């Protein structure tokens, strides 16, 4: 595969993310910044209204690790370890569930205040939606 073919394949897979990045950067230009909690609450509204909740990432090292875990049968152990860290309920072991929990563990360890803000924003959104 030529470099251009490889780039085209990557662009094909990233189409949606490019679009959202464009929207986000457009919103930031010339706008006052929105407090994180409010921004998260607004994002829940947008997701409920149909905005895609897909998040994708491309990383050679992570891809090699995850594919390797699948091939060796060790994905379940990693899933269990992450679930223990989070105190999460058991769910079907998939590549996506492992990555979801890994991101959560990482955010919680690196920026616990941000995660707390996100929890509060979700609570606020859910209580407003109930009415």
């Amino acid at each position: 595969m030529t470099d251009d073919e490889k780039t085209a394949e990557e662009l094909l897979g990233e189409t949606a993310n490019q679009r959202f990045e464009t929207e986000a950067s457009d919103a930031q230009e010339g706008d006052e910044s929105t407090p994180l909690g409010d921004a998260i609450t607004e994002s829940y509204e947008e997701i409920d209204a149909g905005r895609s909740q897909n998040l994708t990432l491309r990383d050679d090292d992570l891809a090699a690790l995850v594919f390797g875990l699948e091939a060796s049968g060790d994905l379940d152990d990693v899933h269990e370890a992450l679930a223990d860290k989070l105190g999460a309920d058991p769910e079907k072991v998939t590549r996506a569930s492992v990555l979801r929990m890994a991101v959560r563990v990482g955010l919680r360890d690196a920026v616990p205040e941000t995660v707390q803000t996100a929890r509060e924003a979700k609570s606020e959104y859910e209580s407003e939606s109930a009415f």
Partner: protein
Amino acid sequence: MFVEKGGVAKTTSAGHMAVAASKFHDLDVVLIDLATGQKDLMAQFGLKDVVTWTNQDDDAKDAPGDPDVELAPVSAVFGDDWEFIRSNIDNIVDRMTVATGEGPDLIPGDPNLGSVDNQLASVALEDRYVVLDQFVSDDLAEHYDLVLFDLPGADSNVALNGVFAASNIVAPLSPGKFEREQLSKLERDLELIAQNNPVDPWLALVFATRLDRRQTLDVEFAEDLADAYETASSEYVTKSAQVGYAQGDGMTLYGLDEDVLTNTGREARESYRALTDTLLRRITA
């Protein structure tokens, strides 16, 4: 297929007319589903659990039914990088399409079509509505004789792209006053589009669907339609529960064996064939 009102059998009609064009006119047909997020055309042909897209997350790929066809998303056509993508991936059209199993191919709408409207809103007006037309000319024309769009039942940038690309508008309507009003609005909108743009869309075919001949109001609706619109067909599609049963099995009425067809199923099938004949005659005239 384009009327702003939902639930008028646009998707059912698109699917059946595509199959009729393929089966009875030996045409290479592709259906393009731009009805955002609905997946109705996929369901029509039993493809809902079979298809996923290259940019979907892994949860979808692990869904029940074990998706086994991975498609390139049609939403890529509307992105900034489309020209680069199509120039460097030779078989991009093949990668967007899946065989329906009844003749036509299908380009299903991927989940990211929902964000295309926002993307198009930032495109200059003179370029905003011609994206799909370019795709048809540059990429589909060499593969297919007939392209049928199932458009969103809403006045959106994506729908307008479909109107520009197709020019020949088919409007199925189920009996109802509101549906007639939508048709009048559609006529006005098409005139407005033609006045303000270098394109001339027209109502190539109007017909009643889900008609119950036992209901006087339904019959009057069809007659009224034929009187009011030159391009309305006197052919209407009879209401038949068998349409739904066939859809449940992932096929059109043409996929059913002759000996299981009910009278109304047979009538509906013949109506779609006749309507397809009329449409093809008009658009090739």
